[in-house]
């Protein structure tokens, strides 16, 4: 019981961290009679139910679940260690209180600044209880992940797509090969360091009587517009500025 309590507090249930709702709350407090019919009203009941279910699962599977969060628009997300993919997905599919029989989506997100740059996302749907849940794991370019095909057959082509587009290898996948890119294509297009125009262009060559792939030659060089605005984008997420400290070994002339 003590272990479960520790697991719960570590799986730190973070509720509603949505920027728009905070800004909207500020607006609503200032105005007196305005209504905002286009903004979805907050559903407290569903939020509480999702929080409760998140705590329930975190209590049962403390070995794999690192964090549980519920977004402001009532979406439950579980953040998991990569070793726990198959146990957690099997639990969510087979347990009587969960019964998430349908894998709606399997995608990856590339955040190059992180150590494990790829974040793999599984979206599950429970038909019995009409609710959705999101399971997230992480991987870097080289470590393989367990394939979810053993749990959900639907994961087959989704994992092929993630392999093709990002380069995340899935162990024990029945048939992991490219699915969207051309046959001899090199590179993983959805990575953030892959350019928009790609590295090769194709043209028909009359001498060899077939289509050849040659390095890219654009008529006009790529114009990148600086889209940063002078105004702060996320005022609700301001972090306290780090205090300047003097460390041993700094000379007077050093400017950081």
């Amino acid at each position, binding site marked *: *019981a003590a*272990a*479960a309590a*520790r*697991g719960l507090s*570590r799986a730190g249930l973070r509720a509603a961290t949505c920027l728009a709702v905070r800004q909207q709350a500020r607006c609503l407090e200032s105005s007196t009679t305005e209504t905002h019919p286009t903004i979805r009203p907050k559903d407290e009941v569903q939020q509480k139910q999702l929080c409760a279910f998140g705590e*329930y699962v975190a*209590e*049962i*599977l*403390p*070995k*794999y*679940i*690192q*964090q549980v969060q519920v977004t402001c628009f009532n979406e439950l997300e579980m*953040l998991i*260690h990569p*070793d*726990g993919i198959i*146990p957690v997905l*099997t*639990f969510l*599919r*087979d*347990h*009587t*209180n969960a*019964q998430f029989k349908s894998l709606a989506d399997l995608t990856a997100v590339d*955040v190059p*600044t*992180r*150590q*494990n740059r790829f974040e793999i996302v599984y979206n599950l749907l429970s038909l*019995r209880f009409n609710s959705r849940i999101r399971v*997230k794991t*992480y991987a870097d370019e080289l470590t393989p992940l367990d394939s979810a095909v053993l749990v959900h057959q639907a994961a087959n082509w989704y994992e092929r797509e993630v392999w093709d587009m990002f380069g995340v290898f899935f162990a024990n996948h029945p048939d992991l090969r490219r699915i969207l890119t051309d046959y001899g294509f090199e590179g993983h297009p959805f990575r953030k360091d892959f350019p928009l125009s790609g590295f090769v262009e194709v043209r028909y060559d009359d001498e060899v009587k077939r289509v050849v792939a040659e390095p890219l030659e654009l008529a006009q060089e790529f114009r990148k517009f600086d889209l940063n605005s002078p105004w702060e984008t*996320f005022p609700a*997420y301001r972090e306290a500025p780090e205090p300047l400290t003097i460390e041993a070994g700094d000379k007077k002339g050093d400017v950081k």
Partner: protein
Amino acid sequence: MTETVLNRGLLVAHLRILYTKLTAVLQNIPKDAAYRKYTEAIINERLNMVKTEPDVQKLENKINGGQIEEVILQAENELNLARKMAQWKPWEPLIEEPPSDQWKWPV
């Protein structure tokens, strides 16, 4: 008409067998594991309903988990899950903490 009633009675017997098997498998899991507590609660509740309610239709409404055939499928799934849980041991503490910036959003 009588054939369907007989068949459904057989189904209820099958359900009972599955639930008793489940309780047996759950004995392999340590008593303080949350999975064992919650699953035993679910199974004991359903087993009581199965034992006390002779009419299949009313039993389905009581359990509120779809038709009896679906309840049986779910019990089989839970049985497989319990066997796998006994191997995976998910009640142990966290394997590994994530790197500190892993789940930070916005980046």
